[in-house]
């Protein structure tokens, strides 16, 4: 069984937000709800300064705080290592939203349950790739199997020493970033 992850090269991101729109379209979300965002980070001072665009989505942690605090057991990790939600079990207590350090969870207003990015697992199981990956015009994201040393994502992470966000939080995310 593969163990899916995404590698993100922030140096290629131009901040066009097409990943967010593609995701909203794919998941049927309303304009005000997102499963991914582009955070902006300013650095330096004039005349030497820059802006970095950091795409953010669920990190599919191997030690997911959201899953640990969920009282109903609605949050579970699939065999592919993707953190999923049982739509029928979630009561909407929002404990997972508080527990997630990356703040990528939100409440679906129609169903009243906690939702987030799920790596488009329906498309992936059918042999495709997540919408945010395929739609990106500058090819910021690489999707693939982290357990296969020859996959493009594994080679990318090894080559650039890509790291997850805040590895010190010990959540062991499966989204890796090359940031310089």
């Amino acid at each position, binding site marked *: 069984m593969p163990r899916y992850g995404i590698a993100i090269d922030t140096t290629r991101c131009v901040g066009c937000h097409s990943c967010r729109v593609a995701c909203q379209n794919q998941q049927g979300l309303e304009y005000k709800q997102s499963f991914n965002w582009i*955070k902006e*980070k300013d650095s330096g001072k004039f005349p030497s300064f820059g802006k*970095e665009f*950091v795409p*953010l989505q669920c990190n599919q942690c191997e030690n997911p*705080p959201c899953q*640990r*605090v*969920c*009282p*109903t*057991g*609605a949050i579970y990790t699939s065999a592919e290592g993707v953190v999923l939600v049982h739509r*029928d*079990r*979630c*009561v*909407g*207590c*929002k*404990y997972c*939203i*508080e*527990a*997630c*350090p*990356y*703040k990528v969870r939100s*409440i679906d207003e129609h*169903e*009243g*349950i906690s939702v987030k990015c799920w790596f488009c697992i329906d498309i992936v199981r059918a042999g495709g790739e997540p919408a945010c990956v395929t739609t990106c015009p500058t090819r910021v994201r690489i999707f693939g199997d982290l357990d296969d040393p020859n996959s493009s994502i594994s080679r990318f992470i090894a080559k650039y020493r890509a790291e997850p*966000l*805040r590895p010190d*939080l010990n959540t062991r995310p499966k989204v890796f970033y090359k940031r310089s």
Partner: protein
Amino acid sequence: MQESAWGWLIITYLFLAGAGAGAFVAAVACDLLAPDWSKALARAGSLAAGPLVAIGTLCLVFDLEAGFWQPWRQLYLMSNLGSMIAWGVIVLSAFIPVALLYAAALNEISSVGRFAKKYVRVLEAVGSFLAVATAGYTGVLIAVVNGVPFWNTPVMPVLFMASAMSTGLAVAMIGAAAIDIRTVRTLSNFALGHVIFLAVEGIVLMLLIFMSLTRSTEAAASATMLISGTLSPYFWGLVVVLGIAIPFCLSIVEYFEYGEMPKYLVVGADLLVLIGGMSLRALIVFSGTPPQII
């Protein structure tokens, strides 16, 4: 400041569950320690405990999204015993009936109460344990959240416990004054409880602030928000001065004056403790800041 997913309903729950559990402990203490002629506080405390925690629990249910509209989903609430909410469901469902039974026993309400009176010591022992669990749970609930570094400290349950005991005692004292205003004189014995718990609350709050300032950037941001940032007027005004310092001083006077203090000051000090307890929880929830991730 990122808005918390939890709002006033959860804050009200944190306050009411603490006050109800504290009122139960105050009632037990009064029933065991006080002389026969001053049982009004035990009666008032026991009558308040169950309903307060029950109303708090209703706030939790109202805060649910899908679980509120489709209540059968709540059957799943104890599925993951690694979750504090699952333990909270167990503790709350055990405490509320015991507290109601204890109120019936102390006040001899109906035949159930007269029957329960035979086992009042058992109810006091079991109930006190569950009351401590209820009050502690409100703190542990947010202390295990590592998505908010300011909350994620073992000091938090201690702070909530101290605040629960002082707010619970305040509820019981106001209730005792309402049942029989003449008992206000006898309440001065219990003012010592306020002195102790408010002192502990103040010290633990100070520890929390000092430790947060050095623990991590995010915890420091939350603590700074409280002591000198946007929330500082509320923190210093409502929590420190009105909620701790003034009732602390009043309680010392009350204890040594032994029943000579004006009634409105006695009840006023208790009302201030309640305002402080509610504000403390609100400010801790609102000052929660998530980790800086990028």
